[in-house]
């Protein structure tokens, strides 16, 4: 039984981690392409339209990767988590089916028109198709996070005698207090990714002395979007999300902050340290006193329950993993704000395009928003363990009862091999598009 569950979890973790590398760029980039197209409509400066066209090439490739790695996600609820699906399908199936009906049809119908329809439609309608693709991808995110929120903080349900969860209030799925902060936090984070990608490619062109004008446009757009979104990720959305965790999942909160013992005079914020699970304490810690209490409750001496006060049966199953995920996310988020702030200051002093070290930093930052987004999701998911539905259904009780570990490992290995290939192809082709660069004023 144990190894069955292990491989089921590994497969879901691996496939969702890989999958989400693509939608985060899709959601953020669609907004930025719509912005470029809108600027073109307003100013009639061709460069904006050419910029939109360039990013649409990356977008198309990225979108295709998101689609093909996304289908396995929906299937896996049934293939690997059959018991969970059977017990909660009447509820989470609701939001997942809505995602298919409301957002996937919208996205996929207009993506073809958006990618191939510029000549056919004219610029205004073309802008509209881009906007609808953006709307579809953000609606998709909303419905996924509505599903996620129900698992974190179940509402509008009752449990029948046979253990099945039944919906009794549809509206509650969408007024769930977990939903709005988590959604805004996630969308801001996806904009961080797209901003850094756009800025990094712009910096690459400037440092190479290629496509100079586009380089400037991308760096400028990237750092402005980047500063705004990095700030929004931290405040108010991140702060709000963390307060939700502190209120509704105190044991998770203690584990992710690395607080083992309750401090009577208020809790410190841990910057660095390694959770020592044998002795239930944090090794080599560097911490600032009372800050965590203040950030969470706006009182310096507010009490925060330490992990050791909770029964071990409700501890997150992987405390160190949760702790590191959260700290990596927060650490990177802080660096993002710092770098973008410097870049915007230089932009307004009209020195950004000559400040080489900032351009180099922007270029090398490219992978890090992906890491921050991924560790952010690990924080949410590892933080929910050992539960699938918080406090109600354990992960161990949700797996498929008839799929043996040998079969799951077989498919997991297959996914690893296939996704490795996909990843290499994506990098190779994206590299080719980037190296070729934007084309001036294509046939219009």
């Amino acid at each position: 039984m144990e190894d069955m569950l292990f491989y089921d979890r590994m497969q879901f973790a691996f496939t969702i981690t890989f999958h989400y590398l693509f939608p985060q760029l899709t959601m953020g980039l669609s907004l930025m392409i719509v912005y470029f197209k809108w600027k073109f409509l307003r100013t009639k400066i061709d460069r904006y339209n050419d910029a939109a066209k360039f990013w649409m090439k990356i977008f198309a490739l990225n979108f295709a990767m998101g689609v093909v790695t996304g289908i396995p996600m929906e299937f896996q609820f049934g293939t690997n988590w059959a018991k969970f699906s059977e017990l909660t399908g009447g509820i989470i199936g609701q939001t997942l089916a809505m995602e298919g009906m409301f957002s996937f049809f919208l996205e996929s119908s207009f993506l073809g028109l958006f990618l191939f329809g510029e000549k056919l439609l004219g610029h205004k309608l073309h802008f509209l198709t881009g906007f609808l693709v953006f709307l579809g991808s953000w609606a998709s995110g909303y419905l996924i996070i509505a599903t996620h929120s129900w698992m974190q903080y179940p509402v509008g349900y009752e449990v029948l005698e046979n253990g099945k969860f039944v919906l009794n209030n549809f509206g509650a799925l969408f007024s769930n207090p977990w939903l709005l902060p988590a959604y805004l936090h996630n969308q801001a984070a996806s904009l961080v990714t797209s901003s850094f990608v756009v800025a990094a490619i712009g910096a690459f062109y400037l440092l190479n002395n290629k496509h100079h004008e586009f380089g400037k446009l991308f760096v400028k757009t990237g750092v402005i979007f980047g500063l705004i979104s990095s700030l929004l990720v931290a405040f108010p959305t991140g702060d709000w999300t963390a307060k939700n965790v502190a209120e509704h999942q105190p044991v998770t909160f203690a584990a992710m902050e690395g607080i083992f013992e309750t401090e009577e005079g208020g809790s410190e914020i841990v910057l660095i340290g390694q959770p020592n699970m044998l002795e239930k304490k944090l090794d080599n810690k560097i911490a600032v006193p009372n800050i965590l209490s203040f950030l969470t409750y706006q009182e310096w001496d507010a009490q925060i329950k330490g992990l050791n006060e909770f029964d071990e049966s409700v501890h997150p199953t992987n405390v160190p993993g949760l702790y590191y995920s959260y700290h990596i996310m927060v650490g990177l988020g802080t660096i993002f704000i710092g770098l973008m702030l410097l870049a915007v200051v230089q932009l307004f002093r009209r020195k950004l395009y000559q400040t080489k070290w900032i351009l180099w930093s922007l270029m090398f930052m490219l992978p890090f928003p992906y890491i921050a987004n991924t560790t952010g999701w690990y924080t949410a998911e590892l933080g929910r363990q050992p539960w699938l539905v918080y406090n109600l259904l354990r992960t161990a009780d949700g797996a498929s009862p008839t799929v043996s570990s040998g079969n799951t490992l077989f498919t997991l290995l297959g996914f690893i091999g296939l996704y490795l290939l996909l990843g290499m192809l994506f990098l190779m082709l994206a590299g080719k598009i980037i190296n070729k660069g934007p084309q001036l004023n294509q046939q219009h």
Partner: protein
Amino acid sequence: MELFWYIVLMTMLAVYVILDGYDFGAGIIHLFFAKEEKDKKAITNAIGPFWDANEVWLIAAGGVLFFAFPTLYASSFSGFYLPLIMILWLLIFRAIGLELRGQIHNKMWESIWDKAFGIASLLLALFFGVALGNVVRGVNLGNVVNGVSTYEAHYFFLPLWNPTFSPQAEQLGILDWFTVLLGIIGVVALTIHGANWIIFKTNANINEKLKKVVFNLNIVLSVLVIISLLIWHIIEPQPFHNFIDNPWLWVFPIITFTGLFGLFKVKTFKKHGMGFLFSSLFLGGGLASTVASIFPKVLPSTNSINPDLTLYNVAAHEYGLSVGVYWFVIAAVLVAIYMIIQYKVFKGKMDDVGYGEH
């Protein structure tokens, strides 16, 4: 309410088979009949702007299955674990074959992705036929061994095959001679369907040849369909009991055979879309006839200990099903609008869409 969602689900599956079916078929034609670059281009242009939206019907149908019939979703997806995951891999290969082919202009690169696209399409057509065969034949629910269930009554697990390849064995496999026969019917029917789509949407040079292919394959298909009907009683002793109780159901087999026999006139059709219409009738009617013959079962049990899964014992709770109707109707209207817009913009012949060119 269960019946409403059952009809919705089956309709969505039929739409999926008709729409993505032409993509698979086009892939098979691409693999076997398109030798020249111009023909290959014409084929990918004819499906390029649609395949993604077509595939959404599978995802959306999966979502409706999950939400309206969670027990069936859980039982069948875990029980058919291996073939489903393999279908996912094939869908991935087919999609990247289509999308990546045009990214690099190099003969070897192009021919590798052509093959990936074609072979994945062929295997998908086979697998979907096999899947239908498995549902009709039923499975060993509860995995009964020597008269004792080893799993909960509605769970099972099927390996890819058992050494006898018999659909009547106690321990079944995904592949047996009955399901493979349905798989082959799937391949032939979708090849015809794909050829009809290409004739409909392109001016490719191979279209005249494809009409002959459609005609010849239609003979094969008719023979296979008749064989399968003759041996159907081995799988289901009373295949017609629903049709006898509800004579209006005969409309489905009539549609199926109209589609099948109508296609023999393929060489004389004036309008290019006629062939596609007839193969759609065959696919939609065939699917409807098949599920009607086992209604209200959705997954029959092959043992006498555990009951069949029917749409009534796998459905979600009443409130969720009722409230779902509201959003579903809104969404369905929107989907219809999108489809009208999409097919209006890309109406007529599509040889010059320039799909996948960068």
